[in-house]
């Protein structure tokens, strides 16, 4: 019996103690008509050897590719130590640290994670993760609206990932929140300071934005703050090794309080989570101390034990669903604990200098690739202004067709923008992280040159 240790003799002894004649009797409180027969449609058991062969075959089927897709998920080197450590049973098979004294490992690690994320984003506090970047943005929107108290209008630029915007809409749909999308400047691919004069609760500012372009975060922050709204920074944490942290966006505010975004959120994947077809990744969320009681998700605090020694425990749980129920800041319960454990180990291994270098090389590689591709006939860089580690090029023919051609050469050439942004024409979003060598960039360039030199098929 896979994973069930009982022997017939034990079962008999246990039934005897229970006073039940047989195993079926244990279900005797369930209305008999509800109990079904064994399900013949389900497959028969495979032993570990068989499933191992099956999964090896499946993964072999999917091949190895040279990947230039970014668009919200980034291929980075993950040190071997990261997942070797976090898949240790003590982390992997523990649950939420409800018994603090028996969970100091997870708890201290989360406290360290909170510290790192708060510092990286330049804000005061961090929670212990949400599901992913898109849903975390939705939670940030809800949080800002709760904090603002007056308006339920939220401004989200079109330079935020379309899929993130869709997710926000799904999740905030039933709370009377009005999501207003802000247009972008077709020349720079960034969000101009809006003309909007209505009251609103929050402005979301992506940095870098979905096109890889750098927004005028200072101007946007100051504009929103001047109107009494909260600023939600949507950032790629990998870039924060070199880009100005949300906590420092904009001017210091008149009252002398620090300026900066009020909330920062985003996808934690670049910090140590494998692409893994999209998950598990995690959403991070940091904010100013003043907002902490509006924050969804778990928080770990440092405290003292009966001997006065430091120890760690879940805290401020009065915000959470298991205490607050219908009045909780969110319904979230399980989060992405193991992935933030990986991130914590990842950030420890990289340190400030590693993060800086990785980010700088991603930037340099994408710049170099963009330049090389743009030099080809039929290709041009779409936006002016600064981009970080993604950029948009325009092709002389449908992107899907070109990507198909690149696939023949083992290359995944980028993300086709024409579905989400038809106004941009044959626009391709590409990304070359630190994992790409000069030879990889050349290979891409040469293959694309080859494809574009062919007659265009209908």
């Amino acid at each position: 019996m896979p994973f069930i240790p009982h022997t017939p003799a034990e079962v008999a002894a246990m039934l005897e103690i229970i006073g039940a004649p047989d195993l079926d009797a244990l279900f005797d409180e369930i209305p008999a008509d509800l109990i079904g027969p064994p399900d013949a449609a389900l497959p028969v058991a495979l032993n570990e050897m068989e499933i191992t062969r099956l999964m090896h075959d499946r993964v072999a089927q999917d091949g190895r590719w040279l990947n230039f897709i970014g668009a919200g998920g980034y291929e980075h080197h993950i040190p071997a130590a990261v997942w070797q450590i976090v898949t240790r049973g003590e982390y992997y098979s523990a649950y939420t640290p409800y018994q603090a004294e028996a969970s100091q490992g997870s708890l201290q690690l989360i406290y360290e994670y909170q510290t790192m994320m708060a510092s990286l984003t330049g804000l005061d506090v961090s929670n212990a993760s949400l599901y992913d970047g898109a849903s975390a943005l939705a939670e940030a929107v809800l949080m800002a609206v709760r904090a603002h108290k007056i308006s339920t209008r939220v401004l989200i630029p079109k330079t935020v990932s379309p899929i993130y915007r869709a997710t926000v809409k799904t999740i905030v749909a039933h709370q009377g929140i009005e999501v207003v999308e802000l247009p972008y400047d077709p020349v720079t691919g960034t969000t101009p300071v809006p003309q909007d004069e209505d009251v609103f609760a929050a402005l979301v500012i992506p940095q870098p934005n979905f096109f890889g372009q750098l927004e005028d975060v200072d101007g946007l922050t100051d504009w929103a703050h001047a109107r009494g709204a909260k600023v939600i920074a949507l950032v790629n944490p990998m870039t924060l090794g070199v880009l100005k942290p949300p906590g420092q966006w904009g001017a210091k505010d008149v009252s002398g309080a620090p300026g900066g975004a009020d909330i920062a959120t985003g996808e934690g994947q670049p910090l140590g989570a494998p692409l893994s077809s999209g998950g598990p990744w995690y959403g991070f969320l940091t904010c100013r101390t003043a907002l902490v009681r509006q924050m969804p998700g778990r928080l770990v605090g440092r405290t003292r034990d009966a001997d006065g020694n430091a120890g760690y425990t879940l805290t401020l749980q009065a915000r959470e669903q298991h205490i607050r129920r219908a009045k909780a800041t969110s319904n979230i319960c399980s989060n992405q604990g193991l992935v933030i454990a990986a991130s914590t180990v990842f950030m420890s291994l990289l340190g400030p200098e590693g993060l800086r270098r990785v980010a700088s090389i991603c930037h340099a590689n994408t710049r170099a690739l963009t330049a090389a591709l743009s030099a080809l006939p039929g290709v041009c860089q779409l936006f002016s202004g600064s981009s970080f580690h993604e950029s948009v090029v325009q092709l002389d023919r449908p992107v899907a067709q070109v990507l198909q051609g690149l696939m023949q050469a083992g290359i995944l050439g980028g993300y086709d923008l024409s579905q989400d942004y038809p106004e941009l024409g044959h626009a391709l979003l590409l990304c070359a992280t630190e994992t790409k060598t000069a030879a990889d960039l050349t290979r891409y360039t040469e293959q694309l040159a080859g494809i574009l030199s062919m007659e265009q098929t209908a």
Partner: protein
Amino acid sequence: MKLIFEHSVAGRCATAQMPHRLNSLDDLPEHLLRRDEPLLPQVSELDVVRHYTQLSQRNFSIDTHFYPLGSCTMKYNPRACNSLAMLPGFLDRHPFAPAATGQGYLTSLYELQQILIEVTGMAAVSLAPMAGAQGEFAGVAMIRAWHDSRGDTARTEIIVPDAAHGTNPATAAMCGYTVREIPTDAQGNVDLDALKKVVGPQTAGLMLTNPSTLGVFEQQIQTIASMIHHAGGLLYYDGANLNAILGWVKPGDMGFDVIHINLHKTFATPHGGGGPGSGPVAVSERLVPFLPLPRVGGESGHYRMLDEHDCPRSIGRLSGNHGNGGVLLRAYIYARMLGGEGLRRVARYATLNANYLMARLQQAGFDLAFPKRRASHEFIVTLKRLKDQTGISAMDFAKRLLDYGFHAPTTYFPMLVPECLLIEPTETESKATLDAFVAAMIAIAQEAQAQPELVKTAPHTLPVRRLDDVRAAREPDLVWSVGRECAVR
């Protein structure tokens, strides 16, 4: 133990993880660049490995301890699920890579969908929700979408029993509903009279866990279902306790319209110190169009993710991709290793273990919350009598269990049973382990009489002694900063 930051030395780094150079960023506007240095530790690779290895040893976990945390289904997480889901090819695949490059992966997800449909008795499933609570959200949002689609927009309430997990009312609220709480009767069933009183044209639906978090099967489920359906509402099944009836009773057959499944419970995916989980949501025929996106569609060899074009009436997306892919792979592998028969066995032996442990504890003099009922896969001991006698609380008792090398059961949930321990042994634990746990429970009960201080001040053998929760909440210390070193043990 020191914090990783306390190992930091300016200028140190884990060199093998460093790119060789820092590239110039001078093409970027100065004012968009970072000036200060983030507080990340500056440590060597050995520092990191040693710190987090030592830290890990300060955790209880399934791999090291019996972990009978009620409602959480802390069963053995097969190691093969981990290594196979982490094959390099699976890890390297980008979510936006074309479906043609992911048939191996998508086939696995598609087959998982089929398995979940089968065991729930529903018509279709979406793997998108990233934990139980998000599955609940999707479910209640679909209930709403269904009513809306019929123009039935006056329904404003979701009914939730008082025993429900906090995610249920919280979810209903997030979906814009008012929560109507209903009481539980002495046998742990829903109080039908009370239910009758709150059901009406304003009822959008009812959320129910069955077996409930009280550890008993709701016997009047069919009556309840017809009451709700009769009033035009829909039934939501919180699948957190599916482990108890897997392969025996299909939620669809009980009359439920929507269900989420906690793969990190019933399907043995790891709990990871808090997550990631996965909460696929399955629905009956009428709700299929509303399922969240994406779902895996297509046919063998040509599977792909269905999107807004395929499913225009969907409630939409819940995440940037399609849920916790790696968790889904683990669940799939687990399901295939068990097969149909094995999945059915899960409920049988989870129930056996719970009833055995319950019987042993009862015989040892512990009070059960529902002594006349069968346990499902879990059950409740109440220590109220002990508390009244000795002042020793369920929390004290729980802490003392840690000293005996057992993770504590869930305490103070469900809230309606005073001084409760919700105990869920799961099917993967052996009789010997359960017997050892009973012995510890008895020993502590004796200590409670003979040396109550010992229990009240427990734990005594863990890396820290009892932690001050009040201080943690009153003076929140949520992030570290330089100079904030404190007593180390």
